[in-house]
């Protein structure tokens, strides 16, 4: 679905030096980025601000022409076949609106139908589905400027799907949304990916989005790809420790000599123990039975490393 090879984009910036002199210098926003995304995948494209995420998205959608490198999206060169491609992919920019501010939501959809030349029966089926799943009914006739952010984002996602795209690119889709709206949107997107087979490419700062939606993660920083792989593998690679948190019935000392446990932390006067262990050294099950052999266990939970931890460590590894 997406094929990116040695993609590079440079910008020329001018800075003032002295009263009339300007100095030009070149900034590489994206520097030899390569990755492939197969049809039906859901991939998270993450990185800190200024990493080159949005520049990549702009090249994938044909808005920007790459300085060099090879890009194919849905089999075409985006900047050459921009209009063709736009009819086959959907894009949601979380911080931008593609709806007409002064018109009712329904009118924006209708305009998009004309712009994307969607046959009316297809349009109506897709719109009905989105209205049902995203509960747009109550505000379909409200001018976009009067919608809440959560309502507007549901409108934005619908707008991106009316022409039945095979690939949906989402640039920070959940930014600024409250928990409930985020959850509703994620649920919808997950279903879109698994039921409909729509390929998802998602940039986000909200790592919960990735955790919920994307089995695969591409991490980018300063224009280059830092890591690319399944979230689980990346986690095992850079953050192999997991933590077993056990609550005991009675305060107990000395759980730090358990096999495979690297560090421990004790809370609540010895009632709660955090036992850090490596996947390679022992299993959660073995550790639990070892703890249970020594003390009466009231409750326990295994904590996976947080995804932002994973990303932070990837950055640090450079």
């Amino acid at each position, binding site marked *: 679905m997406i094929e990116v090879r040695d993609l590079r984009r440079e910008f020329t910036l001018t800075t003032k030096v002295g009263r009339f002199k300007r100095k030009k210098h070149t900034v590489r926003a994206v520097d030899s980025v390569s990755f492939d995304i197969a049809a039906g995948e859901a991939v998270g494209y993450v990185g800190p601000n200024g990493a080159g*995420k949005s520049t990549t998205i702009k090249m994938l959608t044909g*808005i*920007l022409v790459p300085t060099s490198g090879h890009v194919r999206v849905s089999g075409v060169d985006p900047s050459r076949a921009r209009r*063709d491609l*736009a009819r086959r992919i959907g894009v949601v*920019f979380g911080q931008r609106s*593609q709806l007409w501010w002064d018109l009712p939501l329904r009118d924006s959809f209708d305009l998009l139908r004309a712009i994307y030349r969607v046959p009316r029966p297809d349009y109506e089926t897709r719109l009905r589905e989105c209205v049902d799943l995203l509960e747009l009914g109550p505000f379909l006739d409200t001018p976009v400027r009067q919608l809440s952010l959560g309502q507007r984002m549901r409108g934005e996602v619908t707008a991106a799907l009316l022409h039945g795209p095979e690939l949906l690119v989402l640039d*920070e889709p959940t930014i600024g949304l409250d928990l409930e709206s985020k959850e509703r949107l994620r649920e919808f997107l997950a279903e879109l990916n698994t039921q409909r087979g729509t390929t998802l490419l998602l940039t986000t700062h909200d790592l919960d989005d990735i955790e919920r939606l994307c089995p695969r993660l591409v991490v980018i920083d300063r224009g280059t790809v830092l890591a690319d792989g399944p979230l689980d593998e990346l986690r095992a690679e850079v953050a192999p420790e997991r933590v077993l948190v056990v609550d005991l019935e009675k305060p107990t000392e000395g759980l730090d000599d358990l096999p495979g446990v690297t560090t421990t932390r004790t809370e609540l006067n010895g009632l709660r123990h955090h036992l850090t262990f490596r996947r390679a050294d022992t299993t959660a099950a073995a550790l639990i039975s070892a703890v249970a052999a020594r003390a009466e266990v009231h409750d326990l939970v295994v904590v996976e490393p947080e995804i932002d931890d994973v990303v932070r460590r990837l950055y640090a590894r450079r």
Partner: protein
Amino acid sequence: MRAYARLALAGFRRYSTYRQAMVAGMATNVVFGLLRMAVLAVAVAPGPIVGYDIATVATYVWLGQGLMSVVVLYADKHLAERIRNGDVVVDLYRPWHLQRALFADDLGRTGYAVLVRLVPPVAFGALFFPFRWPDVSAVPLFVVSTLLAVTVSFGMRFMVNAITFWLLDNRGVHSLYTVTTWLLCGLSVPLTFFPDWAKPILWSTPFPAMLQAPIDVFLEHGSPWPILANQAFWAVTVFVAGHVLLGRAVHKVVVQGG
């Protein structure tokens, strides 16, 4: 084509949602028309200046007042704002030709402006002042001339706005554009009032095509064909130039925003 027609219709509807702005604009327009009328009436009181008698002056002023909001004689900032804050990304990725899409929207705006901004001041002028109506045969030519004026104006505004891709802060360019347009398009005084040596220079710029041209066609000053040809030339020229400018922007320039 159908998509562009729908966009024009949407443009019409979008502008028609701002009724209060329309009423305020209309009132200001009439007041300024009276001021311009007063000045020019004094000027032609002793006798006609280069063919402008009081009826011609009244027609020139009130038609000009009406046309200025139809044609738009200042640099609007809609696209410039979208370039500055990065929203232009959305416009650039749609399956349309951005310049044509914006032109369609502008034609929708034009349609609404003809109803609420052109008709009232002209009716006001025709009611309270001597007025020169053209021959019926000139009316379709006036319609064509006005459409060409809108096209030239759109093309110029598109370019002034597109410069934002390079300058980011182009308030200077905007002000310069507005001042130049007002001076050279025939809004301050009829272009025939300029000295003879200046006229060919004026008409070799795109500015007269935006206002003086349709007014001259309405007033039946000379043959309409050279006027329409001049307008058509500028319409094509500014459109092509804008198209090239946009292409360069996408190749060379930072598209703002994350």
